[in-house]
């Protein structure tokens, strides 16, 4: 029952497309985060044959309301012109999701985030969030702001479970989130 309601609510969210959310957030902050998303790909090794992008493109997906506005597309356009082709996909609900390398899971409610992350983990994508506590709930990488700069935390155990290998350079830059007691 609860899962059904959740899916319904997600679909509703997708239909409304939440324009206000994009306007609320700092454009500068999300432009920085969009650039980070691209860089994460350089430091992560996916399972062979897990997500597939067309002609070797790096696929970045956004699940739920998109806080990036146009910034993510601009990053994709800039990097596509310079070196690697980057494709951006947006998904309203988890049901219609296509495979991607990096999935940014946006959510304003922490409770719903946990459910989303658990279901998204099966897709084999690197899951990125920017909600306080998300790394403890299954996000592989979670953004936060510290000292007026964008920082991120990594949950290596969750990434390992998803078959992702994160390079030590990225781990050094991150704050490491240990799994909560009981989690292996």
């Amino acid at each position: 029952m609860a899962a059904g309601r959740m899916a319904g609510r997600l679909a509703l969210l997708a239909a409304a497309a939440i324009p206000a959310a994009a306007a609320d957030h700092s454009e500068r902050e999300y432009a920085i985060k969009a650039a980070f998303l691209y860089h994460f790909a350089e430091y992560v090794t996916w399972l062979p044959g897990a997500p597939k992008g067309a002609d070797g493109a790096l696929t970045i997906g956004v699940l739920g309301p998109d806080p990036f506005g146009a910034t993510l597309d601009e990053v994709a356009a800039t990097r596509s012109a310079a070196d690697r082709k980057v494709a951006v996909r947006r998904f309203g609900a988890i049901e219609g999701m296509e495979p991607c390398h990096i999935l940014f899971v946006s959510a304003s409610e922490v409770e719903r985030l946990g459910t989303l992350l658990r279901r998204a983990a099966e897709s084999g994508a690197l899951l990125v969030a920017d909600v306080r506590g998300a790394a403890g709930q299954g996000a592989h990488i979670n953004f936060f702001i510290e000292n007026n700069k964008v920082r991120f935390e990594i949950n290596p155990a969750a990434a390992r479970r998803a078959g992702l290998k994160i390079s030590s350079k990225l781990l050094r830059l991150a704050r490491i989130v240990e799994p909560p007691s009981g989690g292996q």
Partner: protein
Amino acid sequence: MAGPLIFAFCLLAAPQATAAEPAKKGSLASEFARMSLDQLMNVEVDTVYAASRHKQKLADAPAYVTIVTAEDIRRFGYRTLADILRSVPGFYTTYDRNYHHLGIRGFNRPGDYDTRVLLLVDGHRLNDNIYDCPPIGTQGIVDAGIIERVEVIRGPGSALYGSNALLGVINVVTRRGRAIGGAELAAEAASFGSYRGRLTFGQAFADNCEIFFSASAYDSAGPRRLYYKEYDDPATNRGIARSCDDDRYGNLFATLSFGEFTLQAAYVSREKGIPTGAFDTRFNDPRTRTVDARGYLDLKWQHDLSDHTNLMARLYYDYSGYRGSYAYDDGPGVLMTKESSRDQWWGAELVFTHTFGSPLPATGAPPLGPHRLTWGVEYRDNFQQDLHGRHTEVYLHTHNRSRIWAAFIQDEVRILHNLALVAGVRHDHYSTFGGSTNPRLSLIWQPFEATTLKALYGRAFRAPNAYEMYYNDDGATQKGNPDLKPETIDTAELVLEQRLSEHLRLTAAAFAYRMKDIITLEEDPSDGLMVFQNGRRARAKGLEAELAGAWPCGLRARASYSLARAEDGETGQRLVNSPTHLAKLNVSVPVVRDKLFASLELQYTSRRDTLAGRHAGAFWLANFTLHGRDLLKGLDASLGVYNLFDRRYRDPGSREHRQDAIEQDGRTFRLQIIKRF
């Protein structure tokens, strides 16, 4: 030294790197996209909370905002909030060897206890409820080492915060437990036998629980010898105050976050010797001193009611106490006068934020775009406002209580794609004098991506405080005035923010202030007693320009100039302690990348008039700090030299001082070591 080379490199390399790329030139996102991961780690987000009571980028804030970060504090060796604030363009401080006073845009009348600035710590109001004084010197409640950032919002803030927010709102954001991730031990030694220690502990437990705790202690013997020519007489030790300038404090600060709840507790107590013979006390008597204590408990609940609505609820209890001991000559003996105040209050506030409305379509002319509505209510019960004074007998003994309720609303709406309107109003009702309504209106226009223009109008007020209304010394020199009304300010300001490159920003502002009913201590001709009255008016106008940059190589620089002409509304005379020109230069250069930083700060203050109609001369002040990071594992060290060139300068004195201007410290040093565990 590699510093200047890196400086030149940063200046040259930044524009060239972007010019070489053809795609989407000028777009913020594409500039970030071309950066390396290490460069991205150093880009500043530039958001501010206190300008609108929610997080927004600086360009969207309806004010000229300056942010001082923990990084600035470390690199420039700031010791107190007063050090931090005097680095802010348009700001200056005055020290009377007991309290630091803050001047903003030409306003800092001697004897006013900084009542026209609102100070917040993590959104919690810090001005006390008797003197309305925001503690910024060594009596400050937050140790400089636990500050994450200081948001300085110029202009009127009464439309959001009520009383005191006339010239500006300063929000001190403290560090988070998660960011400490262990323990930190700081030890420092400084000139005049000054020592300070700090122990900080912070940790995140599970993902929704975080704890932060910090305690500091400071002890300064002070200069062994201070000379004041005004007292140069054999009867007053030839003007020499010996060991009368001691300063010591202890403070505790703790934050506990659990899910949506945050509980914060803070306490500070400071004891300071007064070496200036203020209030006609016996000169060179170390028994003349004050003790100031301040504490609070603050419980905050942040809850998302839906995707579009969130709620912040706050419940708090505050304590503030002051004890002054003043030694007076009494024939052959000494008479000790004791004065004290004790105030306690509790309060609660609810703030809702809603976002609604659809975005502006690409074409067509819709009436309005998305809104962000912030509204709230507040209640404060000043259940204790006591003043007490005694020499041989009690001469002052008042108990008062006052209550305040308030409601405010602010709407931010996008009228066009590049034009936003911010309109807000707040009504405060005081059990003492009645009501005050204060609006604020701002238009924020972004004609080009890198350019923002802000047109701001606002009104703010300051309620008469318990000291002004009730202080009296039983008919000796001063009496109370319970009929005081609030003073108000009307302000108009234009701000231009121009991004010159990804790393360099220009801000310029022009402002006009008009203040009326200013609460001023004046003589009542009927009985010759001093009494606070609403008589005075004042006006100020001025210009400010600031060029600030932070480069990925670690170089940070800021240069600013402020012109302010603040004068009496009736006589047109320049206000006392109001410098016309302020100029500041801050440059921090990485000598060894990410390891060692050399930072130079230059501050110019032009001539200031004094109460006696003379002046305190113009001066340049230079401070230099060498800061080393991770020199050994988890070990930082910094050496600061303040007033590097040992310049002699004076700050205007107040009515209680025989000194028309008070000599300030010459060259001093501070060595600080921080070890993280």
